[in-house]
């Protein structure tokens, strides 16, 4: 454990610089059957490869196995067929090396901790020194635009602010891979747009692979380098759409012809 937490510190890439080496996330013929009665085939023959630093969205109807796929990548749930590798390692090994950051639909902050203590939580679990935790929490709160809110309790924040705290918490161990499961689905349209822009800014500073699950086509295009379209059931990747829109991006982008074309393409793929 100690050894591993030292690794986390050593592999820390500071803001701006990003370690582009490694193989990224590779998913080969991955299948998953839940041992329910009758057995439920949630994923079937899923293949993809995400290069280091790429932002990839997973889009598809409810129940097509998006959350399941994130759990498999994070090493929380073993695949029943095929293999996932994270920079050549198994998901379980990658999890031991603390390479993942997780953001969920609900912020799920710990109500008994202040905002700052919530951001420090994962650092405590991996035994980072107190001073280091404090430093990181300060930086991250500033990064997500919540400097000065550290002493508040989560219940005192709006939904959008709570989700920012959740993002800061996920970044606390400088993950190589950020897994986001419909993180903005519970927010209203305006908060969602703001946070989309913010997320891109944060991602530019703290570059990592992002696997971003969403139901929202525009959000997927706006954020991603690539969109994986999933279909039910059993969940598989029906098509992959590359998004060759220039970065940095702003909300104006959404009226560009190329954006509209991509939107039409994705809509057709999802309705089919």
């Amino acid at each position, binding site marked *: 454990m100690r050894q591993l937490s030292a690794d986390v510190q050593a592999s820390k890439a500071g803001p701006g610089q990003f370690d582009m080496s490694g193989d990224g996330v590779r998913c080969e013929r991955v299948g998953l059957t839940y041992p329910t009665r009758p057995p439920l085939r949630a994923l079937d023959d899923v293949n993809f490869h995400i290069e280091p630093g790429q932002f990839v969205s997973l889009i598809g109807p409810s129940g097509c196995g998006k959350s399941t796929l994130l*759990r498999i990548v*994070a090493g*929380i749930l073993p695949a029943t067929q095929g293999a996932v590798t994270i920079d050549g390692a198994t998901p379980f090994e990658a999890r031991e090396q603390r390479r993942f950051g*997780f953001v*969920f*639909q609900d912020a799920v902050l*710990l109500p*008994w901790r202040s905002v700052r203590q919530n951001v420090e939580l994962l650092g405590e*679990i991996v035994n980072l020194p107190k001073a280091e935790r404090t430093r990181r929490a300060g930086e991250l709160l500033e990064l997500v635009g919540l400097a000065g809110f550290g002493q508040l309790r989560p*219940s005192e924040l709006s939904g959008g602010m709570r989700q920012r705290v959740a993002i800061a918490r996920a970044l606390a161990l400088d993950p190589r891979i950020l897994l986001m499961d419909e993180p903005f689905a519970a927010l209203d349209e305006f908060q969602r747009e703001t946070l989309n822009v913010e997320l891109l800014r944060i991602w530019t500073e703290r570059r990592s692979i992002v696997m971003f699950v969403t139901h929202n086509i525009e959000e997927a295009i706006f954020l991603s380098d690539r969109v994986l379209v999933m279909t039910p059931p059993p969940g598989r990747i029906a098509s992959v759409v590359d998004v060759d829109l220039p970065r940095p991006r702003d909300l104006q982008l959404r009226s560009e012809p190329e954006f509209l074309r991509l939107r039409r393409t994705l809509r057709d793929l999802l309705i089919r």
Partner: protein
Amino acid sequence: MISSSASERPAVQSSRNPDAAAASRGFRALLSDQWLRWVVVIGILVLWQIGTVVFEIPKFLIPSPIVIGQALWTYRAMLLTNTIPTVEEAAAGFILGNLIAVVLATWFVHVRTARQALYPLAIVIQSIPMVALAPVFVVAMGTGFSSKVAMTTLISFFPTLVNATRGLDAVERPLIELFQSVNASRRDIYVKLRFPNALPYIFLGLRVTATSSVIGAIIAEWVGAQEGLGFMVINSTYEFNAPMLWATLVVSSALVLCVFALVAVVERFVVPWQASAEMATGGKR
């Protein structure tokens, strides 16, 4: 009780609330609430007093409040010396029963088979009427301290076991996954997630068992005890001393109220986030 705790909570919150107007409004509401309660209590006492005089009810049947007040004063030394053993029995059983309950609940959430084997047993034990158990403990353990503590321990055990188990279980799945995603140990998940999450539930159990352990101690003292408030209840009944009996009842219920208030105060310090959560949802849980 429930309404009193709900109306007292906002007062705690208001001290941290920057909105001074809202704070003072909350305080005024609390004050008028208190007033209303006192008016009702005093009203009942006055009617009681008038009733006993008008209908000439003999004081060996139902003594008037003034007679009870006099008895409280007359027997003050005896009441005090008999309160102490009751408090000790209740406190010992309260601490022991709740400790066992939390430890067992911890075991239950980690070892599924332990829960499956023992939880039904706990429910069976709980279904035995406690009053009927008092003689059983006396027969088994004698009339001393230990039989009383056995009783209060058993009474304190079950409500907290149920609530603690529920609280330790009631952790959102994404939070577990978050902990797992950084390879947290089960110990970390317990210490940093499950236990704090269970605290409001545990306090639900503590509130119930704080009062029932006092009542349990009194009931236990009905059977062959030489001291305690329960002993005084039985003794004054044998002596046909109704004022003393009623004075003992007043002290007993005052004790129950004190214990309940004590737990409520401790809860506010230990589980402050719960108070603010209740504020946010308008006092509902």
